[in-house]
């Protein structure tokens, strides 16, 4: 019988190190591959600071972070909100913050959760691998902070603040959603472009050019710029806005980069939290089974764990959507079950996973999916029954809501599909792209909104257009392309622009 580790309740640095060693040993047993850990102990006030800088350990200065801080502070003071036990940053070494107020049991839970759960997710998941460079993010944030501080000195706080405000308004549109980041070099790009142009040139039949074209056709033929609609508005602005100063372009770039850095986190909330929760549960239980942890310690861990994965039902006062910890954790546990103890239903639904090695399957799931695809691949009928999921259709054309599917044989597929869609960011974030620039005329920029399922754009659009106008420097228009192909003008900045056109 091994001697259990001291269960505190107070922690010391020695004890933290002992626990970390044990957790690490078990984590390696389960093949969790992590960045080195850098664990920082901070106070509650510092936790509030960390909160308000949206998880960036080094942030440039902006009033919106101050606003966030004031809000956090107020909520915390009034007791409306507890602070998170930890914050973990996707960097190499992986920085995790532990709060000084936690008991030893909580610190151990947080270490297992953040330093081995989240950390291995950051290192393993394909989105993070593709889009973020954990090794350089801290350096980049430091660069950004210094650069922006320098600009403030050179050009004044107000100037910089204006640009940042405008960039923040478009931050969600500073992301490449579909394009892969491996970019060919500029030289390569130009070469290919030249080849294309040569080819087109070789196709020109000089004879056709003698036939007069009608007015109508002439107007249609005007080449659009950009030739393809651009989803990354900030990138487009950075590269093409005619009037921006170089330092302003650099700020646009900074905001865009940071937005891109956080984009994978938005897409993997359920998986990331589920993965980390699954591992703190599994690692600590493993240690408990080895006799390393006392009963009291384990009870405290389980109590906290149970709170974290509680899913209130839809009619509860505490209900605010599906708890990503609950869904993620249960799916991970369920995958293990499907691998270890599959029943007939599982064999039918998951022929390729049922009975396979659970650890391998789980790692595979962690590495190769995001929330949307993870749910559509791994949500089992049994879990749908356990959660008693049901799907509600809210069609503004209808006077009532309709239950479209429930947790029964005919509904599983449907529920899985619509829950998966619910985690598809492109269903929430309005699809707005740079459609056209009037390069021969007034240089006005036209954005095109393509509604998803007929959902209109909210009123804030006018304000956002003002920000885009500030960046672009020439008139900006927003139009909507309806399902039937018709185009409706939604807004423009300056506003008079719209009236003239009509």
């Amino acid at each position, binding site marked *: 019988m091994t001697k259990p580790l001291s269960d505190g309740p107070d922690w010391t640095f020695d004890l933290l190190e002992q626990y970390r060693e044990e957790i690490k040993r078990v984590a390696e047993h389960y093949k969790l591959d992590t960045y080195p850990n850098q664990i920082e102990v901070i106070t509650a006030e510092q936790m509030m600071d960390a909160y308000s*800088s949206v998880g960036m350990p080094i942030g440039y200065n902006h*009033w919106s972070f101050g606003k966030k801080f004031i809000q956090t502070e107020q909520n915390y003071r009034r007791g409306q909100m507890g602070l998170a036990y930890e914050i973990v940053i996707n960097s190499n070494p992986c920085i995790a913050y532990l709060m000084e107020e936690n008991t030893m049991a909580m610190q151990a839970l947080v270490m297992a959760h953040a330093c081995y759960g989240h950390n291995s997710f950051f290192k393993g998941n394909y989105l993070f691998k593709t889009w973020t460079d954990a090794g350089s993010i801290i350096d980049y944030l430091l660069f950004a902070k210094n650069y922006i501080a320098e600009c403030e000195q050179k050009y004044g706080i107000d100037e910089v603040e204006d640009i940042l405000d405008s960039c923040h308004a478009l931050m969600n549109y500073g992301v490449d959603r579909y394009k892969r980041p491996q970019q060919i070099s500029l030289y390569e790009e130009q070469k290919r472009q030249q080849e294309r142009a040569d080819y087109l040139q070789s196709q020109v039949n000089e004879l056709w050019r003698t036939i007069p074209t009608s007015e109508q056709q002439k107007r249609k033929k005007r080449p659009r710029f950009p030739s393809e609609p651009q989803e990354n508005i900030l990138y487009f602005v950075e590269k093409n806005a005619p009037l921006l100063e170089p330092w302003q372009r650099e700020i646009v770039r900074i905001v865009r980069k940071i937005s891109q850095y956080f984009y994978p986190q938005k897409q993997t909330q359920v998986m990331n939290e589920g993965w980390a929760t699954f591992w703190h549960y599994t690692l600590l239980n493993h240690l408990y089974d080895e006799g390393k942890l006392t009963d009291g310690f384990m009870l405290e861990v389980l109590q906290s764990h149970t709170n974290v994965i509680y899913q209130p039902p839809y009619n509860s006062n505490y209900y605010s959507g599906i708890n990503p910890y609950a869904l993620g954790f249960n799916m991970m546990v369920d995958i293990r079950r499907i691998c270890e103890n599959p029943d007939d239903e599982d064999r039918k639904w998951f022929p390729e996973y049922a009975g396979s090695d659970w650890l391998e399957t789980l790692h595979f799931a962690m590495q190769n999916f995001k929330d949307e695809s993870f749910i559509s691949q791994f949500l089992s009928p049994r879990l749908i029954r356990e959660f008693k999921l049901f799907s509600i259709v*809210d069609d*503004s054309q209808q006077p009532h809501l309709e239950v479209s599917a429930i947790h029964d044989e*005919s509904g599983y597929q449907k529920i899985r599909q619509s829950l998966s869609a619910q985690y598809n960011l492109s269903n929430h974030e*309005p699809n707005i792209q740079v459609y056209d620039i009037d390069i021969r005329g007034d240089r006005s920029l036209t954005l095109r909104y393509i509604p*998803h399922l*007929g959902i*209109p754009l*909210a009123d804030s659009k006018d304000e956002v257009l003002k920000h885009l106008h500030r960046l672009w420097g020439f008139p900006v228009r927003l139009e909507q392309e309806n399902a039937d192909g018709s185009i409706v003008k939604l807004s423009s900045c300056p506003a008079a622009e719209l009236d003239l056109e009509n």
Partner: protein
Amino acid sequence: MAHFIDRRLNGKNKSTLNRQRFIRRYKKQIKEAVSDAINKRSVTDVSSGESISIPAKDIKEPVFHQGKGGFREQVHPGNDQFNAGDRIKRPPAGQSGGAGEGEASDQGEGTDDFVFSISKDEYLDLLFEDLELPNLQENSLDKLVQMRTHRAGFCSEGVPSNIDIIRSLQGSLARRVAMTAGKKRELAELKQELIHLEQQPVPEQTRINQLLAEIEELERQISAVPFIDNYDLRFRNYEKRPHPTSKAVMFCLMDVSGSMDQATKDMAKRFYILLYLFLTRTYKDIEVVYIRHHTQAKEVDEQEFFYSQETGGTIVSSALKLMHQIIAARYSSSEWNIYAAQASDGDNWADDSPQCAEVLSNKILPMVRYYAYVEITNRAHQSLWREYEQLAAQFGNFAIKHITSVEDIYPIFRELFKKSANTTAQSA
């Protein structure tokens, strides 16, 4: 490899700068909130900061997001009663019911104000930001006559209770050493010689006798030096220095006759608060005396001063006389910095106005540091204003101003104290 870093000792105020940025950006709104808040707080309540509320729509950061309408499908947990195909009545608008994301705040009604607190210093900074506060303390230094006793070294004369024993004994020791050192050396030499002679095989008796006599004489002289002498005594010395007092009293005089309505009183209140806050920056203890008057004057508390209703005619001099009595009884002008602010709509018995001028010029103005008269009215000036105008020309510490609306108060306040600073500069 992992390592632990203890960051607890690092500064916790990483967000301070961002918070300042926020306040800087919304200064306009915050200042509005501050000046609104003035009406709500008591004149003497300066210990607290202020809770500031800004309309949430002003500080929104706009982003593109989906509006209401269209086709949505949402999955919820915990089904307890529904079957596929069930139809549910749409929950009434306004109740969000969790059906849509991020919409709850779009409705005008549901929007809460953004409320937060600023500290007392931030509050005062915002309040006085535009005001050029004259340095009244300098102005007051030359005239303040409260004396305080300070230790000031030692002296050789004084009363026995002030004797400083250590110093005195040090003197005594020094004197004794000084007066006996030479003799003691001589004595030692003689004794040495005596021993030397006695050791000779044939002692020279006459010389020995002579030496013995000399030694006796020296010892007598040494023992005659007194242990302590009047000359040794040292006394602790005290001196009195004039000390500027930090006590101030502020008299608020207000006309509460029928012609003063609540709006006018609120304007006066703002003025008093400004003056009070301003004084707190200079003085530690401030007392406020409220005198309200119609035909008769009365000292009242703050609540009654601002909110009790009374009507009657107006005799301003009654308040001035009462003020003079109170000063004489409780606030000696040598100890107190006296400030007075009088607010009125300018109404007065025509016969009374010259009397007011007389009371002010003879009794009150020589004693007060500053007397400000604000007339809050939209009508033409009357006899009181004309009398006061003449006084203002004569006395540097008397100022009159005319206020017609709330917006005038800050600028007028500034002007008043600018003027005071200039006069000091001239007199200095």
